[in-house]
């Protein structure tokens, strides 16, 4: 397998950005689809290696729970779940399509095109995505230290801001290597949507007369 190292950085940044945006959107869509509790309880079970695997949770990732009565755990407490608004997710897709041609790009089959063609399109997507992100979100890094340096986490560190990985043993304070500095949205300013506006139309078809 050959990698063209010289061409990598441009697409690499862009890919990260797209992946980040995509994962955000997908997780929003995923949460949106969930209508009731058991499904997410199941998702939590999947994440937790401690819980006893049940045929249900192991065998399928399908979003529909087979039955609400099938309760592997003795006393599950129903989790409070918020339904993310699909409008916001659709709006973000609209903005990314409009400024960055995001949907167009992802729907292309890259295999038959040269790196230079992909690079040219990637610039459009990168510049546009960057503009969209900067316009509507204020992003900041969660950690200001350099990546790949040793940092120490105090006892009261916020577990949702910092994820511990690897040899996770012992008690805080923890000392480890900062792998990724993390991202946080400190301000969000999405456009308001007019009532009656069909948000599912991400980009209207265009007909020039």
């Amino acid at each position, binding site marked *: 397998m050959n990698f063209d190292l010289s061409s990598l950085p441009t697409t690499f940044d862009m890919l990260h950005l797209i992946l980040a945006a995509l994962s955000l959107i997908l997780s929003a869509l995923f949460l949106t689809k969930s209508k009731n509790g058991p499904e997410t309880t199941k998702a939590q079970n999947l994440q937790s290696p401690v819980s006893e695997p049940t045929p249900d949770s192991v065998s399928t990732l399908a979003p529909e729970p087979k039955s609400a009565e099938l309760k592997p755990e003795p006393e599950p407490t129903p989790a409070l779940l918020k339904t993310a608004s699909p409008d916001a997710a659709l*709006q973000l897709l*609209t903005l990314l399509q*409009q400024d960055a*041609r995001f*949907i*167009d*790009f992802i*729907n*292309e089959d*890259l295999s038959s*095109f040269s790196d230079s*063609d*992909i690079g*040219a*399109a990637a*610039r*459009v*997507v990168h*510049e546009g995505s960057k503009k969209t992100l900067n316009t509507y979100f204020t992003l900041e890094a969660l950690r200001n230290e350099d990546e790949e340096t040793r940092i120490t986490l105090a006892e009261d560190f916020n577990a949702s801001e910092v994820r511990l990985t690897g040899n996770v043993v012992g008690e805080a304070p923890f000392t480890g290597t900062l792998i990724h500095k993390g991202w946080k949205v400190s301000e969000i*300013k999405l*456009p*308001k*949507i*007019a*009532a*009656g*506006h*069909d*948000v599912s139309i991400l980009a209207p078809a*265009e007909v020039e007369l």
Partner: protein
Amino acid sequence: MSEMHQTGESAARYSIGIDLGTTHCVLSYLDLSAITEDSPAEVEVLAIPQLSQPGLVEEQPQLPSFMYQPHEAELQPSDIALPWNANQKVIAGTIARYLGSKTPIRLVASAKSWLCHSGVDRREAFLPAGSPDEVKKISPLDATVEYLEHLQQAWDYKFPDTPLCEQQVTITIPASFDPAARELTAEAASVIDFQHLTLLEEPQAAVYNWIKACGDKWRDHVTLGDIILVVDIGGGTTDLSLIAVTEDQGNLTLNRVAVGDHILLGGDNMDLALAYRLKAKLAAEGKELQPWQIQAIVHACRDAKEQLLLENDIDEVAISIPSRGSKLLGNTLRTTLSRDEVQQTLVEGFFPKVSIDEHPLAARRSALSQKGLPFAQDPAVSRHLAAFLSKQVAAADDVLGANDVQGTDASNFIKPSAILFNGGVLKSPVLAERTLAIINQWLSQAAAEPARLLSDSDLDLGVSIGASYYGYVKQGQGVRIRGGLASAYYVGIESAMPAIPGMEAPLEALCVAPFGMEEGSETKASEAEFGLVVGEPVFFRFFGSNVRRHDEAGMQLDYWQEGELEELPEIQATLPAEGRRAGEVVPVRLAAKVSEVGTLQLEAIAVSSATGNDKPERWHIEFDVRD
């Protein structure tokens, strides 16, 4: 002393500054009731809700000065609703610019440039200019009203208890606006019914913004005898003013002593120049561009230029224009814009190093020749600057005392000692430094001290911020720039002498409004009498001069130097037939006054009253003559 009691006219809570720009409008506000001795005036910029896309409402500090006249099949009513109106009819702001980029025939742009274009009837609905008959048309005046109404609705939506029309409002206009354009701006504002309205010249607003940013320290940055040159290069126009620093009872005072001609030349021309350069480059590679691609390149050049005009080590910026269809790959047009190209096109093209005696190449195009905007024929800002400084060589003599004129061309210009930049174009350090270098080269050739730069903040929003600060200054706080009329105005009189075949009757000019006439003042009626025919419009030839500073009202000139007087569009008086016989000739005298708003008004005053009352009748003379 923490409470401030407002009295009389200024019962307004906010001082509002509105920058009604060629390409953007900005509204900023200052809460007069929040000012105490300890907390200085704070100005905020209103985030203006506007549609960015059909159905999407965004708040932005600038409202693009564009309107879009949609086809009835084009948009759903729900897609153009605004927070304050679910049944919005007018489409203005970002969405108008966006839709208009794809359908230019329905886009109303540059209404402000049309408003000061005397070659057209500015009340006639003809915008978008040159579009098919089916597209609904609007007049430059009405377009201006629409932008003001959008600002008003945005304000009233956010501050329902303090409606905009009750506040102290200052609207900025180019210093080079003639009396007709000023009056039209005031007329547009009158639709909003502002109770306390003032017009302020944009370069002056920029100075107020600078004073506000400096606070009390502004006096440390200038000294007695300084001449400040304000260079304001916006999206559509270049506006120049000179401000002299004098002393009055031990306090420094500012006097606006000269303003430049109206130059339709700005940042938009620069983006277009770059785009056409790239078009030529692509054509050389055998790629022909379609109109929409050129539009996209203009847009891309705007962003690319900003990077290449910073002092950094980026040598070129890639320009990618994606196809319009959903297939991106393989159809994306690629080119690059290099630092050298930007340097050649913008720096050398618009800011060439010229000597002080090189003035714009072509004279102004005759305003009546065609129905188009009278764009500057010469794109070189530096030549316009040289012409302005040369023409205004004596501008500060009255307030600062005469200079020793050495008589050589290289030194025969007014020498600014400080420079204040404003407008989006001069945000670029490369262009700002170039402009400063050119002026300083002229100064050093004339053996004068180099001018220093007065640093200003936020060149995009500065005019509006300065205008709202001015509303506060007007209440007697802080320094106020003295100005008055920046031109003297004359009415042409054909001199009574026997006609000579092949020669026009010599023209004399009667000064009706002197240079520097202050707001709220009026002149005495002229000695000269004119005969007006009752019931028929009578036209006068009308002239302005921004260099003749000593002509008093009533003075009659039979000789002036080439270029001293500039002919403006004719003005017109119509006497109503009421109480008089149609066809009767009524002798009148002319008088002028400058309103509190800041507009010039000319009146014809009957020499003897028809009804025998003591008070002679007065008739308004129109600047904006309708055909």
